[in-house]
């Protein structure tokens, strides 16, 4: 169905690895994370904020975070955009090209839930939908962090990376309250 041709070699299922070795790998990752910026059809708002994070103003290289040109060198994918139908094949290939552990930061309201394009004919509607396709293609992703915002603030991206690496606990909690008679 999807054109995920990568020499025809099936991706190894490494869920045991994800379960047992991930924490160990994370302690190593605290030293530095190399990121690959993957635009899946975003409006470029989030991409500009990603660039902002890399400029001297926010200078994430002080944490060892470095932008690389190929997913094969990356630990983390900065995924922006609602995943347009046209990009699916390429996105799956880029994620598949990453070495384990595969980490994804779904950025922006588009990346998290499709944003204002959550139900159009031309988009999938964000990372949660893409995850199903990745599963079908046998591509495992070890950890995902969702970072809402439209566009995401550079600070929010830095915060997201900290949450991803387990340096900070997420603040958001599911809240379900009864409407009180007032």
């Amino acid at each position: 169905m999807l054109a995920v041709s990568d020499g025809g070699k099936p991706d190894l299922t490494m869920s045991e690895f994800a379960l047992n070795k991930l924490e160990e790998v994370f302690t190593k990752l605290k030293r530095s994370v190399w990121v690959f910026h993957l635009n899946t059809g975003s409006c470029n708002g989030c991409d500009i904020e990603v660039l902002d994070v890399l400029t001297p103003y926010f200078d994430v290289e002080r944490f060892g975070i470095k932008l690389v040109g190929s997913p094969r060198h990356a630990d983390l994918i900065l995924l922006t955009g609602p995943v347009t139908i046209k990009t699916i094949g390429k996105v799956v290939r880029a994620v598949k090209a990453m070495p384990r552990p595969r980490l994804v930061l779904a950025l922006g309201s588009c990346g998290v839930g499709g944003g204002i394009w959550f139900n159009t004919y031309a988009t999938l509607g964000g990372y949660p939908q893409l995850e199903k396709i990745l599963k079908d293609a046998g591509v495992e992703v070890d950890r995902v962090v969702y970072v809402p915002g439209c566009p995401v603030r550079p600070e929010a991206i830095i915060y997201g990376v900290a949450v991803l690496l387990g340096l900070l606990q997420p603040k958001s909690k599911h809240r379900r309250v009864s409407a009180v008679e007032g």
Partner: protein
Amino acid sequence: MRMVKFLKMLSISVREGTATRKYPFESPLVTPEFRGKIEVDPVKCVGCGACTRICPPKALTIGNEGDEIVLKYFEGRCIFCGMCAYVCPQKAITVSKEFELATWELGDLYDEVVHTTVKCRICGKPFTTVKFVKEVEKRIDNKVPEDLLTVCPECRKKLTARKIGSKVVGVSGE
């Protein structure tokens, strides 16, 4: 020549200082106009659904869940436009400055307000919230015919049609 240029840079950087934000170690720059996550006040909200209709990405939705009506807010899809706060007739929505929302669990990004419902007198289907009916009664001084408040829109249509029908045919009663 190059060296001279470099020295020039040095004097500028001494004058201007460090440009880099210390962000995780200092509070972020948040202007008074900044819009972050919204908060729905469960005391003020009546469950009218006006906010769900204006919301551009439908981050706010309202729907029946069994015997309850639930107003759901999905932070993950919100574009932080503040239209819902502007349109809410009860002023139940406030726009906060919170933007550090990153999380592992998609479920953490949902906020829900659960409303008790009024059931239709005829078909028994829950069709609106108790608080909404009370608010409507308050706003128009209890001058609403009972039918309008206790009968769901579908049953009301049938009821009206039957009334008109009976007038035309000349038969009284329902």
